């Protein structure tokens, strides 16, 4: 393990942090049934 600091560009921290379905949908302002279920119109 190369310790301490990043000696190369590859070690730098870029990309994403994974978040789960409820967080994604809440952040998007969605209010679906059970978080991610779209009910057909007659069941809403």
């Amino acid at each position, binding site marked *: *393990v*190369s*310790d*301490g600091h*990043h*000696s*190369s*560009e*590859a*070690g*730098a*921290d*870029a*990309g*994403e*942090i*994974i*978040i*789960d*379905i*409820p*967080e*994604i*949908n*809440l952040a*998007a*302002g*969605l*209010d*679906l*049934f*059970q*978080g*991610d*279920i*779209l*009910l*057909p119109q007659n069941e809403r």
Partner: protein
Amino acid sequence: NALRNETYRWKFPIPYILGDNLDLNAKGVILQAFEMFRLKSCVDFKPYEGEETYIFFKKEIGCWSMVGNLQTGQTLSIGERCDYRAIVEHEILHALGFYHEQSRMDRDDYVTIWWDQIITDKEHNFVKYDDGYITDLNTPYDYESVMHYAPFSFNKNASIPTITAKIPEFDDIIGQRLDLSAIDLERLNRMYNCTSTHTFLDHCSFESENICGMIQGTRNDLDWVHQLSATGQQDHTISGRCRDAGYFMYFNTSSGQADEVAVLESRILYPKRTQQCLQFFYKITGSLSDKLIIWLKEDDGTGNVRKMRKIQTFQADNDHNWKIAHVTLSAQKKFRYLFQGLKGNPSSSSGGIAIDDITLTETPCPTAVWVIRNFSQILEKPTSGFIESPRFYSPEGYGFGITLQPHSRISGYTRVAFHLCSGENDGVLEWPALNRQAVLTVLDQDPDVSKRMSSSKSFTTSKDHVSPGKTLIWDKPSTAGIFDASCNCYRSLSWGWTNFISHSQMRRRSFLKNDDLIIFAEFHDITHLNYTEVPVKPQQSSFMEDLTLERQKRAAQDTEPIQDQLPYLQDPCDPNPCQNDGICVSVKGRASCRCPSGQAFFFTGERCQSMQIHGNILGITVGGIAGTIVLTIVLISMMAGRQR
């Protein structure tokens, strides 16, 4: 937690459309999820060709689906940040008819819902269903289900959970987004009566005496030995978990003569695609000239499996650890695969050749395999440092590497990321390398591929990926990267996930078997997925219909996995072309009818369409009628003579 009503179930393959508003990466991830269903269940998908019912994958806001087959054509959304394989699997399981695990009727026996911690008006996310509406398919509550929500879902306070397990050990497990759990698959396969899968062919961990139907070669005197682990010779299947347990196959090379061989042959296997990947673990502890050779024995065209092809040779080295191997077979007819052990120099050998945990699937072998040994020791050091893989080459020729940070800046997680490396092909390749999908997989080394829950994440290179200095990451590494003496190459900035996998996840399951962490990496051009959308139910002029059909055909070709399907994949007996209860048999890919036969009648013709009477019955009947007529004439003539 499956819908009881069978009208909501799908017939396979399920038609699908990949909408063009989907991110390119999402399209690739959806196809990966399809492949996982094909590997582990009988669920299959096909490009839409005008069917009434289908799934239209679109990029709407968020990740969501409808539950079950609504028989109308339905949308499934893979929105921003939803393009992960496990999330797509979760949404597809909804579409297949499953609700969330924590909405089972009996969930209060297994989890606690902290109602006061739920965001106001979001309580409906934790409703339960009555067992008259859903069924657990006679399976236990599954904390590991990909359909379970995580502890902090819909919470008011970031550090207080809304759902916890009654057995606290499972608090780290609920909400896992690795892959389908074993019970998810059991339910899916029960619900859809799956008896086989599409791309799984063979698996053997040699734990049972029948060694999975493998046979010892008959043309040589020596055999592989079915050996129990002992001190100094551990198997791979349950390596490190128990002493004196677990079997593997072993060929002792420390006695006898040089060039003696032992051959282990698989049973006969029937391919559906044109490419297979044989994965196994091996170790060679004998002399440096010992060899393990993989052969393919194929149908010679007459139905006999005898046409030999040497595929790959593994040479001994000084590394006596279990190693993972991948061999591409490319069998197109029925075949066996063979392990040939070859003694190099018995006088310099004190060991032999061992093989274990074989898996044969009809999927491509991984492009890059990186093994990090003694990983738990690395995890124990509280360092913020990182490890870089050797340079690998993609099928197109791009050099790339993997960066692993055991302790990422998010406590308790490991960062895994992808970077480009300069390489020998850079002068001819396309730069920047855009629209390439990088797939990183931390392997769960469970011997049974259907039980593996590997962590796989993907992204697709885009012009939006820029370094802090505003340079495009995917430009030539010799200009965008920094020189690294360890590979004598330039490495670019890595792009990945700070919370790729948690330390607790890695310590569970078989991620660290033998204390080895194994990471697979892929880097493929997916530009061909840019235009995949086809119109629904075209009602157009014949010119436009032709145009649409041509586009559908192209989309179908583009969106199917790269591997070719063999022509006999389509069952000629489905639907059964035989009439009058004839039994259909596939002979060389063509339907052949076996017609029913009764005591008096039998059916003939290509489709059993003609009814005939058995010859003896006909003879008896005709003879009887003729005899009766003759007798009647004789009697009438005798009676007439008496009257005269």
